[in-house]
């Protein structure tokens, strides 16, 4: 397919940063090519006449269901902490944030 949309490697870097993805320098060009091809595909949408069309966010025409504000879940703290890569005395551990 001929490419009309083209992303530059620097734009891929910016999007990867926004999405918090560490992309190696050596992969940027390939991603730029692949993402450009995908954007070419979705660019077809620009030709659709959508004047006066309401955007559709959801397939069922439903309103947000509400429940009463009561505690309904009782998560097992210890069991959940066991899944964490690192935890200590009831907390998730991450590298130091405040110097």
């Amino acid at each position, binding site marked *: *397919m001929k490419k009309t949309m083209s*992303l530059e490697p620097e734009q*891929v870097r910016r*999007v*990867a*940063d*926004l*999405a*918090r*993805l*560490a*992309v*190696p320098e050596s992969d940027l060009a390939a*991603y730029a090519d*692949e*993402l450009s*091809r*995908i*954007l*070419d*595909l*979705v*660019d*077809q*949408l*620009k030709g*659709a006449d*959508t004047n006066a*069309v*309401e*955007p*559709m*966010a*959801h*397939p*069922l025409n*439903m309103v*947000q*269901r509400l*429940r009463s504000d009561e505690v309904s879940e009782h998560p*097992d703290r210890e*069991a*959940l902490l066991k*899944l*964490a*890569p*690192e935890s200590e005395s009831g907390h*998730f551990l*991450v*590298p*130091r*944030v405040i110097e």
Partner: protein
Amino acid sequence: MHNMGVRALADALASRSFSAVELTRHFLARIERLDSQFNSLITLTAEQALAEAAQADARLAAGDAGPLTGIPLIHKDIFLTQGVRTSCASKMLDNFIAPYSATVVEKLRAAGCVSLGKANMDEFAMGSSNETSYYGPVRNPWDTTRVPGGSSGGSAAAVAAGLAPLATGTDTGGSIRQPAALTGLTGLKPTYGRCSRWGIIAFASSLDQAGGFSRSAEDMAYLLAAMAGFDARDSTSAEEAVPDYVAALDQPLAGLRLGRPREYFAEGLDPATGAAVEAALAQYQKLGATIVDISLPSSTQSVPTYYVVAPAEASSNLARFDGVRYGYRCAEPKNLTDLYMRSRGEGFGREVQRRIMIGAYVLSHGYYDAYYLQAQKVRQLIASDFDAAFEQVDLIIGPTTQAPAFKLGEKAADPVAMYLNDIYTIAANLAGLPALSMPCGLVDGLPVGVQLIGPRFAEARLLAAAHRYQQHTDWHQQVPEVAR
């Protein structure tokens, strides 16, 4: 035992021709003997399965059994299963032991199903060939040089190879119907909201829906009956009564109006696959249905619409994988940002990263209106086409895929060629409609599928129409060599 339907298995269990433990052992032995060829399972839970089977036998002995009590099945590894690794076929969740079970898993367990293990799939359900799995590709039991389809490729391959009578799957853009077509199975994606999404690892929340794989529409009726229903824990679960799908199987076909969308028979459809689908239409006419020519003009925009909406929702849903609370964490993070970025960069595979980046791009400042809002509007047009069509017809009929299963590696290099696999299946997800694929022929020895799409909550009508076809044809009884 591996070629018996649910009803026959239930009768045999009830009359003690064999026990649930014997039945489970039969399938476990087949998996151990055969699955190295297909790689359809990520995790086998043999011990648990035998314990569940023993409980099923106790229920059978106590006269407390339902139609699925003692029937083995396999869950796609996207469904949380308490105490069992739930990986979503990603390095990110390779070490993740689910702390609770999905509603669908609980419901099938309550019905007495015996879970044999967790099925391979495309990573985070992103793919149409099952080649993006961290655990390696799944191979098609009809020809192991070919893909089984995706993303629920392991579920499909397992049922097709006779490793389980039933399997669960999820379908966000065709991930049940496309693999069902490519492996010769009946696959159903119910109406959006019909089965609870609670405990299913989210991909695109306005599209995701659980369903399953079986050898026949009758078996599917039993499976859906146990899976469907309102769940307060899923905020978009439908508050809609569940009809008796099994009783509804015998609805007559006479007078049924089937819409044939001309866009589904246009350029791109492989002629032999198209001929098999046309033969299914002719069979339906013989059975008393009327074929009505219809048009779904906006359906040609389905794939581009999907590749805005689904990645946008995915980029948001997959933000939760941050290396802090569960899942993969990179070694020796320098600081918190480095921890996030390398955990995600190393933990996610390439297709997942592509989709997250597309999602982040179309939602970003300056592009939101042109891509995301425009896609939501076209989505409305696609849904309106169906609403208009269903004023004239009861169901819509067409091909599930353009062609039979392709070779491993054939489309892996070009993401767009891979995406076009779902050209006939995506529209039903965008509109939230139930849709079913069932086998309607063999092309060069490979199965192809016919797709039926219904109005919202018309699963009973879909299953009845499929059942009637299967009573007069034997394509659904064709199995690959390994399952004979």
